[in-house]
């Protein structure tokens, strides 16, 4: 095994869809296709892509909210996707998740103390009542929440405060690994910086490892150690953040980078052709990006490029990347 804290090997997730009423064959949606990633301890591994690319499914599958249809998932060298609930319980304490929308992820009828105490009571059941209270108070302080919030309900808080509470809930069991699924997308601009700083501080203090899922490359550039660019359930490029931004190898990565609105202006001056994603149920045989790719050749439509290592250490799934 490698020194990775989390590793996926050939992970696939397929969702069967309801059959058409005239046909017996059930269509299958391939949400993830042979995803191999290895996340190193202490890094902020970013997954970036557009809606439907499978980035959220990947996060949910790693954390155990979704069972992979094929492939293996390891946490600290232990295979976890085949474990039963009871064996997995101590590992769930170490892997937690922060969701996108803090208006939906907190139970509106449960006060902050109850929200934070539940994971401790459930996953660290040996703790006494006093220990639970101490743990909740510690995590509130660490995440910049006021101790007086404990008896309040979610509706009394703003979006930024709710996301702090959601982060506190993820941290209360002292996990090593956090999946953060678009944790700032639902927040206002002036609040986004507060939450990003908090995540950075917590990582420095607690040595956390993040899987950070986002659609926003400017956040990746600031926050990420390494990045996986996903498209239609596949990793198209995997690189160190700086390398990805200075020399992107996959045409899709370049398209994404070109799409970032820049404060200096000028990148929307030339018209762009409408791009269409292929139907994820009836995927074309070749490269999934071929229909939108500016450098497409006949080979791309026939043969699917595998993710391969290039000379500069980047991995890219393109026949022509070098």
């Amino acid at each position, binding site marked *: 095994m490698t020194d990775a804290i989390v590793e996926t090997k050939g992970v696939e997730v397929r969702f069967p869809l309801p059959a058409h009423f005239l046909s017996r064959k059930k269509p299958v949606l391939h949400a993830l296709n042979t995803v191999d990633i290895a996340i190193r301890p202490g890094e902020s591994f970013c997954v970036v892509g557009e809606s439907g690319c499978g980035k959220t499914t990947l996060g949910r599958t790693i954390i155990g909210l979704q069972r992979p249809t094929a492939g293996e998932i390891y946490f600290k060298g232990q295979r976890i996707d085949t474990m039963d609930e009871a064996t997995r319980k101590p590992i769930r304490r170490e892997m937690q998740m922060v969701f996108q929308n803090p208006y939906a992820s907190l139970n509106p009828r449960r006060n902050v103390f109850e929200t934070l105490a539940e994971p401790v009571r459930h996953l660290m059941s040996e703790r006494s009542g006093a220990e639970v209270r101490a743990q909740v108070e510690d995590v509130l302080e660490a995440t910049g929440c006021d101790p007086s919030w404990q008896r309040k309900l979610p509706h009394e808080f703003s979006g930024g405060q709710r996301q702090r509470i959601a982060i506190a809930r993820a941290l209360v069991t002292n996990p090593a690994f956090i999946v953060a699924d678009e944790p700032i997308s639902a927040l206002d601009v002036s609040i986004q*910086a507060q939450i990003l700083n908090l995540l950075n501080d917590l990582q420095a203090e607690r040595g956390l490892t993040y899987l950070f899922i986002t659609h926003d490359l400017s956040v990746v550039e600031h926050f990420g150690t390494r990045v996986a660019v996903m498209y239609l359930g596949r990793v198209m490029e995997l690189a160190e953040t700086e390398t990805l931004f200075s020399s992107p190898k996959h045409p899709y990565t370049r398209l994404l980078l070109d799409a970032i609105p820049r404060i200096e202006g000028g990148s929307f001056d030339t018209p762009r052709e409408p791009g269409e994603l292929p139907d994820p149920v009836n995927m074309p045989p070749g490269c999934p990006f071929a229909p939108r790719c500016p450098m497409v050749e006949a080979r791309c439509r026939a043969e699917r490029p595998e993710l391969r290592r290039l000379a500069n250490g980047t991995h890219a799934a393109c026949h022509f990347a070098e």
Partner: protein
Amino acid sequence: MAMLEISDLHVAFPKGRTGEVEALRGVSLTLEKGQRLGVVGESGAGKSMLAFAILNLIAEPGRVSEGSIVFHGENLLDLSERDIRRIRGNRISMIFQDPMVTLNPVLTIGTQMVETLKAHRRISTAEARRLCIAKLKEVAIPSAEGRLDAYPHELSGGLRQRVVIAIALLTDPELIIADEPTTALDVTIQAEIMALILKLCRENDVALILITHDLGVVAEVTERIMIMYAGVCVETGPTQQIIRTPRHPYSAGLLKALPQFAGRGARLYQIPGSMPPITALPPGCAYHPRCERATGRCSAQIPPLEHGCACFHPLDQTEAAS
């Protein structure tokens, strides 16, 4: 005379039995023909309220309580519902955030487009269809002829927003108000749509009011900018000037908080706290509780908008440039 001149616009909503709260507290702006203005602010700052007020679309029980909106010498607030229809959807068009909500799901694209044209022009259906196809081609929709008989769900999100833009352009408006037109779309599609809006505005000399929370998009597309906070304009002026040398502490804070300005892993500048709701505004400048430059005067008096900046202690050139 300017094409559009809004002065001292107030929008009020009833609160309790006799009270009122103001969602807009005296907003003024002028827009010349063909000019592109970006209205930036956090949710609740009043930017959509401004758009709705211009089109006389403030829903009961809200009302415009003060001010005037003069379009080509005519105060839109004095017009009857019948007369405003000569202007709304005809000389001033709107593009909303979510194309799936804007388009009627049970009518074909063609029906909706022809309907729009016939509401404003005496025109035969055949002639209307010809015009619609021409507009669909103008927004670069592939195989435009066939799309007239398609339903909205048969198109991708990006194509749907292109259809909405085509509808907005059908009547050759002088002004388009676009309220977060790309927030519901993916980044690459956002770039396509914004490049298209920019091109069409330039080619047809159409003025644009672009409402968004995204400073990058505003920098790319607009010539002037208006930054709103808690129902007032705090700073306005040429887009690039304000982005390079913001004078209001809130504008400066928003810009400094953007991840693209911080080095990788560096701490982001953060504005403390969050924007107050309009029902609980502090006395004086609404921003003063979050402002590091605030003095006693800021909590006593509301700073007027002078030379494009509503602040008693604006940043000077050297501070702003840093």
